[in-house]
């Protein structure tokens, strides 16, 4: 009897693929946590500076979802039972492939997916069994090994995060096109009704190396562009631009609004969005300077949440805080119940000494304990990213770039664009007297009907030559 079994339609499979892709950018393992009401995929990166989770709602996300907690009910007294395990991201991503929904492979596309997690003390075969039911009666079955572990979830107290904003993911996505490829940090700074997102790199270079200093990009936009905006001004908060990129790229696939909650620099920031039964939460560590001591915070710039393009007058609506996004908070509170409570009362501002928390479910961002320390993500290699983020070649500018001569694809390239219909072929014919200079070569076909098509394979040219 599997402890968990569920089935998904194709759309659900693709969205799991997107989530797995996103998690892969944080860490090479994925933690699964199954409960009766949801399945959570999460990961914590190796420097423990970033945590990502995707909670799939059992009633809306899945076609069927059955969590059989009979085995665990007698053991766990601490709350609702849960099943946790960990497996390699690569294993999951090789099952939930991106091409499953690809129209080009329509013939082999999966139609639905059934997953069963078998976990039985008496059974040596503890596996996650994924069945992809494809067209033409093909069923692909994958059996994945997993490791049974305790999962660490990041704790984030939204009540103490007094800065928040919400914005369309596509706006954030458009930032990515401007950011340089090698930058490391993303700084947020609000002032005078505008907020600047600056991607920068800390490295100090000298001499000729200065020219290699990555591009520093600052995007400043009006706070009215946000659906909701309530942020303390004149405070620098920075986090990893690589994590931001991973999050925004995923958020854009769901075409949703991204919401951010944060308090102070060196305290975590949480980015969340919630769409179609997927609740995505990312908790990232921040760095930055806080002007003066924290006892006298700068004024908070608050804007009404009803952001119409014309009438977003500034107003203090600090009381908004408890009323909004009850569903999200509800989920989180349940989550907190299930975990050992932190050793400090939750009503205090954000836990000041993360080291003192020792519960297995608590987030222990070791790199956060000192203000000066900062997460050190590996330099992103975005230029090699297959899902490249940068300006698409709208005006086929790439055709002017250098040809890759090692490219094995052997295609005659001229006039393949079709843009030069008039000019491209008119002067290509070899004049008759010139053709005679090359006895070994056939004359260029003079007849316009037999003119060589703009694109042809090398093999076709060879047959042409042998005829001559």
């Amino acid at each position, binding site marked *: 009897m599997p402890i968990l079994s569920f089935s998904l339609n194709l759309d659900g499979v693709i969205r799991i693929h997107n989530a797995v892709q996103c998690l892969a950018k944080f860490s090479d393992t994925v933690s699964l946590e199954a409960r009766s009401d949801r399945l959570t995929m999460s990961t914590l990166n190796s420097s423990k500076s970033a945590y990502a989770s995707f909670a799939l709602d059992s009633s809306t996300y899945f076609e069927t979802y059955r969590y059989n907690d009979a085995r665990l009910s007698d053991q766990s007294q601490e709350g609702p039972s849960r099943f946790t395990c960990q497996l390699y991201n690569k294993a999951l991503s090789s099952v939930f492939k991106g091409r499953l929904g690809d129209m080009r492979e329509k013939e082999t596309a999966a139609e639905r997916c059934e997953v069963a997690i078998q976990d039985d003390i008496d059974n040596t075969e503890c596996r996650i069994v994924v069945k992809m039911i494809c067209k033409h009666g093909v069923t692909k079955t994958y059996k994945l090994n997993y490791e049974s572990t305790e999962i660490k979830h990041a704790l984030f107290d939204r009540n103490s995060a007094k800065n928040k904003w919400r914005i*369309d993911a596509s*706006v954030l996505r458009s930032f990515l096109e401007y950011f340089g490829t090698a930058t490391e940090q993303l700084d947020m700074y609000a002032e005078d009704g505008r907020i600047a997102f600056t991607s920068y790199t800390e490295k100090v270079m000298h001499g000729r190396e200065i020219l*290699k200093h990555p591009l520093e990009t600052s*995007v400043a936009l*009006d706070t009215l562009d946000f659906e909701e905006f309530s942020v303390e001004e004149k405070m620098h908060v920075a986090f990893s631009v690589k994590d931001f990129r991973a999050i925004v790229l995923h958020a854009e696939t769901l075409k949703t609004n991204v919401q951010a909650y944060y308090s102070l620099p060196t305290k975590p920031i949480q980015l969340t969005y919630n769409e179609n039964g997927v609740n995505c939460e990312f908790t990232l560590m921040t760095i930055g300077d806080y002007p003066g001591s924290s006892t006298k915070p700068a004024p908070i710039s608050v804007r009404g949440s009803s952001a119409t393009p014309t009438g977003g007058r500034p107003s203090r609506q600090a009381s908004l805080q408890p009323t909004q996004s009850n569903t999200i908070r509800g989920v989180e509170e349940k989550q907190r119940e299930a975990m050992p409570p932190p050793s400090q009362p939750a009503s205090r501002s954000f836990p000041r000494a993360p080291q003192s928390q020792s519960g297995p479910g608590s987030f222990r961002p070791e790199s956060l304990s000192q203000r000066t320390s900062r997460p050190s993500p590996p330099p992103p290699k975005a230029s090699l990213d297959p899902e490249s983020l940068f*300006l698409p070649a709208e005006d086929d500018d790439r055709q002017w*770039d250098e040809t890759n001569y090692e490219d094995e694809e052997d295609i005659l390239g001229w006039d393949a664009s079709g*843009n030069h219909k008039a000019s491209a072929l008119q002067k290509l014919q*070899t004049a008759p007297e010139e053709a005679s200079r090359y006895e070994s070569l056939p004359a260029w076909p003079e007849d316009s009907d037999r003119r060589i098509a703009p694109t042809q394979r090398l093999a076709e040219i060879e047959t042409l030559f042998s005829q001559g």
Partner: protein
Amino acid sequence: MRFKAAIRNIHTFTKLTGSLLLLSKVVWIRLDNDQVRFTVIPERGSQVWAVLSIDSIFEDYSVHSNTPGNTIHLQVSLTHLNRALRSAINATFASIRLTKKDGIPLLAITITTTTFASLRRPPTLEGLNERRLPSEAPNSTSRAEVDRGNDDSISFQDHPPAPFPSDRETTITQSVAATVLPPQSVASIHEPTCREPDVHILLPPLLQLKAISERFTKLALPTSSAATGDENLSTRLILSASPYGEFRIGVQTAACKIESKWQGLTNPELDPTQIEGGEEGVREHASTRQKNLTREEAWATVRVEGRDWGRVLGVGRLGGRVVACKSPDPFFEK
């Protein structure tokens, strides 16, 4: 030392940096009162010495320097400059200035755009109705005009559908690290002097020429198994031009000999005012002598390295007319 300008022609500037980027990663920019010069001198391959009049890419241009001739020499990464400029493609306004941050000189490109407005959700129903009302009237009048057989459709143009009202602007600032070169360090760098060209000719469409050149280069390259990525392997393309409007490109290997020929191209005439010696100089010019030769004799031929030539042809993205001057070194002007 100050430099500030509005970028008038973002498209040209971006394409220029894009084509220079193919040849080298670093560009030397020379700014003075009259000209902007972009020079790339790669370790191997073709050099580019581009001279632009200021108003071809900038306006409201100001340069202040203590050096004689009020000249600023900068060195910047083309990769970063090109990336920075590419984010300005949809800009409503862009400017460039030289600043300093933490002791590092920076070329700061400030871009103002309203494109984010279009990304936002469609306007509310209210907004739509407001928008429709004013455009309703001109539509009906112009339809009436069409009925009367009046093909004056300007009334459409007078009332284009107003973009959704949004006066909110997004400012993007791209900071490109730069080094300021002291005048003495560049004093010894001179543009190579070329022999007087034998033939001037307007090349055929560059995209076409580029595709054929690359095709020839690829055919003449040793098979990939033998090449194993050896960069030193080179292919010589043979370029010939005549004062009779003909241009040939060819390649010869042990296995094959291929040639393409264009006819009916234009040989631009020399402008006596630009030539030393005026009319007399034109008469004495090498290209004039070449014209007196017969059709068969008048070919001027150069050999170029195929890959390098392909990179040089990347300049075609600027869309200008190209004059090739056939002399021992190919030299291009837009």
